[in-house]
Each structure stands twice: as C-alpha cells, then as structure tokens.
C-alpha cells in the first residue's frame, strides 16, 4: 500500500500556546495566526522545506539529477505524487526523462503541439505507422498530422502500454469506489482534465494516451494481459521533436490487478538539447520514421523554430 498522507505541517512556533492540553494536537495547534503579522510570519516560516513530491526550482537544485546530465541544463525537475499530475511546455529539442524509483509509478502521457494544440498525440498512428504496438527504443510518438512529436531514445523498463489509455471516473468508481480528483483513487482522465484546463484546453481536447512503466501484452486471441512493472529504478527518455505541451498523470494503470490503488512517486526531469537531426542514425532508422522527421523538420523550419 502506498503512502497517502502528504508532508506533515510545519511547526514553526512549536505548540500553540493556547492549545487545550486535553485535546490531541492537530494542525490548528501548530500555527499562530491570530493577527495579520503572525499569520504572515507563520506562512513565511513554512517555506524552504522539502517534501516527498514537489517541483524543484530552479530545476538545477533537484536532488535526483539524471546521470550524465549537467544540472545547469535542466529546465524541469519534479517528483509527482502518487495520484498526482503535472504539465509543462517544452522547447523543441528538450530531453524528457521519467524515473520510476519504486517500480509502482505509471506515467500516463498526452502530447500536444504547443503552438497549435489541435495537433496532438495519435495513438493509432503511433502503433500503426511503425508496424509495432509496443513502445520501445526509437519508437516515435506521432501526431495525427504525420509528424513525429517525440521519440524514445532510451528505455530501461520495456513495460509500457499504448492500448488501454488511462482510467476514467466510471472505471475507478467501479474498481475502487471513488474517482474524485481530490480523493484517494483519482482517475487519470480527471487529472488530465485539470492539467489541460490550465492551458485553455478541455475534455474535448483529450485523445487516447500512452503510459509508461506498467506493461500490457496482447495474446493471440486479442486478450490484454498485464505484465506490470520491470521493478524499481527504471527510466524512459523522450526527445521533444517540436515544441510540446506535455501532460502527465501518475495514476494506477487501468489493468492493475491489485484491489488497492497502488502507485508510486514519479520523477520527471527535462533538459536542454537539440532535436534529432539528419546526421543521426535515428533520423532515418526506418522509412516511416525518416518521412515523419522530414515532415516535422519541414514544419519547424517554416515556423522559424
């Protein structure tokens, strides 16, 4: 069972002087806020603490800088809580890395062209164009407009899924009895709705997505079988081949067979880099990928990117 409680509240002034010694100590007792000045002091005293899941600003201060990456190059560093979500606009060429430190993270991902969000991840094309249903190294994440939005240059997990998408409220209510985004078993879609709204997008804009770190395979009769995690300490990397709006929900996979809502923290890092260029092997690894890159480069160059 994963931890569900958040970071404990601060105790900047110790125990409240008027606390009733007969009552158990609550959060109320930890804060002296009976005037504007004391409330301000109380609030300000809470800063500077570290929580288990939080963004690290500036990104170079992350306690989990990926190996081989200069912290000065980082543009995004965050640990997403179990049942949490995050989102970011990344420049073309950015490297994005997800880490699953516990083996129980599940990074549900949606991608949009940050400049024209009607261009977005198209899972059908992402499986059909490469002639391959399972995500792995050099697998492109394609839009419906014939362009490669991102590619997977590195993957130490190999347990991913492009069939099942993320969870809905209906699914989680049936499975766990609750799907509220503020509750104990939020649905991925419920979190995506909030993340999208912060970029002016609505549920109309949310296509099927992919997820990383919890694998699914298709049997000969079509049955979707759960393979789960490759264990703690795996990671997957992406290259942003165009300016991307990235939405991430860290929620239990729809086919997770456990009755408890089990999901671990998800680490997210991104750093500056260059988009894949014609000189790189990946650019023309397959005829389909080559033409997808030609389309992306054509788009980006015309836009002056």
């Amino acid at each position, binding site marked *: 069972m994963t931890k569900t409680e958040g970071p404990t509240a601060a105790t900047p002034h110790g125990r409240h002087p008027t606390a009733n010694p007969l009552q158990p100590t609550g959060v109320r007792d930890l804060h002296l806020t009976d005037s504007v000045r004391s409330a301000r002091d109380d609030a300000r005293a809470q800063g500077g603490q570290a929580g288990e899941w939080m963004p690290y600003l500036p990104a170079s201060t992350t306690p989990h800088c990926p190996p081989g990456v200069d912290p000065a190059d980082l543009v995004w560093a965050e640990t997403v809580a179990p049942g949490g979500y995050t989102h970011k606009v990344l420049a073309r060429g950015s490297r994005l890395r997800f880490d699953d430190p516990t083996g129980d993270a599940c990074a549900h991902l949606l991608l949009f062209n940050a400049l024209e969000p*009607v261009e977005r991840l*198209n*899972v*059908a*094309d992402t*499986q*059909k*164009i490469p*002639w*391959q*249903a*399972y995500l792995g190294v050099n697998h492109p994440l*394609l839009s*419906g*407009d*014939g*362009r490669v939005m991102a590619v997977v240059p590195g993957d130490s997990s190999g347990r991913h899924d492009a*069939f*099942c*998408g*993320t969870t*809905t*409220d*209906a*699914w989680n209510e049936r499975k766990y009895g609750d799907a509220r985004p503020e509750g104990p078993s939020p649905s991925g*879609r419920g979190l995506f709705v909030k993340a999208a709204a912060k970029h002016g997008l*609505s*549920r*109309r*804009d*949310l*296509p*099927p*997505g992919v997820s990383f770190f919890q694998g699914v*395979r*298709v049997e*000969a*009769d*079509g*049955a*979707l079988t759960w393979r789960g995690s490759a264990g703690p300490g795996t990671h997957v990397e992406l290259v942003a081949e165009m300016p991307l709006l990235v939405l991430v929900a860290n929620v239990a996979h*729809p*086919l997770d067979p456990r009755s408890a809502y089990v999901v671990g923290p998800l680490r997210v890092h991104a750093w500056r880099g260059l988009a894949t260029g014609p000189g790189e092997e990946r650019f023309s690894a397959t005829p*389909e990928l080559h*033409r*997808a890159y*030609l*389309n992306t480069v054509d788009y980006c160059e015309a836009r002056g990117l």
Partner: protein
Amino acid sequence: MATSRTEETVPTAKVLNNYPTTSGGTVATAVPVGAVYAEGSPLDWGASLVDGAVVLDERVAPNAPWSAVVAKGHVLTIVDVGGNQSADCIIYDAHDPQERYSVPDTLAWQGNAYVRTGTVLRSNEGRPLMTVVANEIDRQDTIGGACGKESNTLRYGHHVMFHHGCRENFLAEAARRGLGVRDLVSNLNWFMNVPVEADGSLGIVDGMSAPGRRVAVRAETDVLVLVSNCPQMNNPCNDFNPTPLRMIVVDPGRPAGAGEATSQSTPEDVA
C-alpha cells in the same frame, strides 16, 4: 529536391477521364479523383441484421463520408456491399459530442484488443455508446486508426499526399455537424483486419470479409455516428477496390413495415 525541367516545356492540364457526378451525369475532369471499384465487382446489398421498422436506409458511395443520429435502442446495420471495404467510424453522444468513442476504454473494459459480438463501444468517460449485437466476420478492428493525407506520407511517401483520406472525410462530415479537428479521435474500422502478433508487430493485412457481410450495433444512448467509406488505395483495407456501404437503421421495438421511413439513398453508387 531538385527536379529537372526543360525550359521550353509549358505544362498543360490534361483531362484524365470522365467521372460520374452526384447529379447523375458525368464530368470530364483533370482532378485525380480516387479510384472506385472495377466494373463487374460482385455487390451484395444485403439487409438489416436485426428485425424492426426501418428508420433509415442509405447508401454510401466509395470514398465518401456519412453520418446519422441513431436513437437509443435502434440498431444500425452496416453492410460491406463489395467485401473488405473498411468503414472508418467514430461515435459521439448526440447530446454532448465531447463524450465520444474511445478505443482504450473500449479495449480496457473488455480486456481484449479486438471487437466482436458483445463488445460494448465505450466513450472517453467509460460509458456505453453502442453494443455490437451481431457480426458476420471473425473480428473487427479498432487499433488501425484512420488514413489521412499526412499519415499516408509516412506510410507510402510524399507522392501520395494528394490522395483523399478518411481524416479528410471525417473533417468534412464533422463540419456539417458542428464538429472539427478537436473532435477526431482514434476510431473503429468495420471490416478491416489488423492482427497484433506475438512480438507486437501489427499492420493492416488482407481482410476476412466478403460481399454482403454485416455488422450490427445497437445504440445505448442517442448517438451521432460518423463514417468514412475509406478511399485508401495503398493498402488492403478496401482490397484496393473501394466499394459502397449500406447503412440501415431499424427500430426493433416496432415491427418491420410499421411506419417505415422512405429510403434516403443517395444515387446508387458512382462506378
């Protein structure tokens, strides 16, 4: 890429062929229109798979889009008139089109990657939109997505960019219903065959359907059904021979012949 061009050559538009029009005549045209089925192709127009009063009975020409609202409880039969003709399909809640068909929800709820009799076609909110109540081929596809001008360039090369595609059909038909590109999502492909092999290889291969084969789907709520009669000529999703579809909606709650709607068929077909 540089193209060699002789200075003195002035390109002239050539009339390529005579093409049938929706008005019933023909027009001589230089437009490279998509192919339609060869003369003599066997066609079986079939009939509804489910008994009931006919609410709607329409024919969809090769390459063309189609849409209709199907009321809760009514059953839509799609007839694969010429055999192995992919009918790309997206379904919307007629009263709230932001709730629409979802491939991953449909697959995750049933725990299977293929669509067969009994498959509940679910929305992006996990709710039932339609149910497959009868099906005359082994399995139906919902993994292969839709073709489009742009994705065709990835699969076949930029020389096919001018081809018409299902994404264009969807956009044109969606626009008639007040919907647009934000409303296009991964779809169903009735009568298309996309196996997933053990190593994850997948692709569109020769179909398992035949002239007159049918699938029937019952509306679980009022739905808008958007269909593209696939114009693809670069893979076997329509056997390289685009043929018509027949769409029949019946109300099983009323006996056949009771107050039936007159056929709203478009002109036969355009071969």
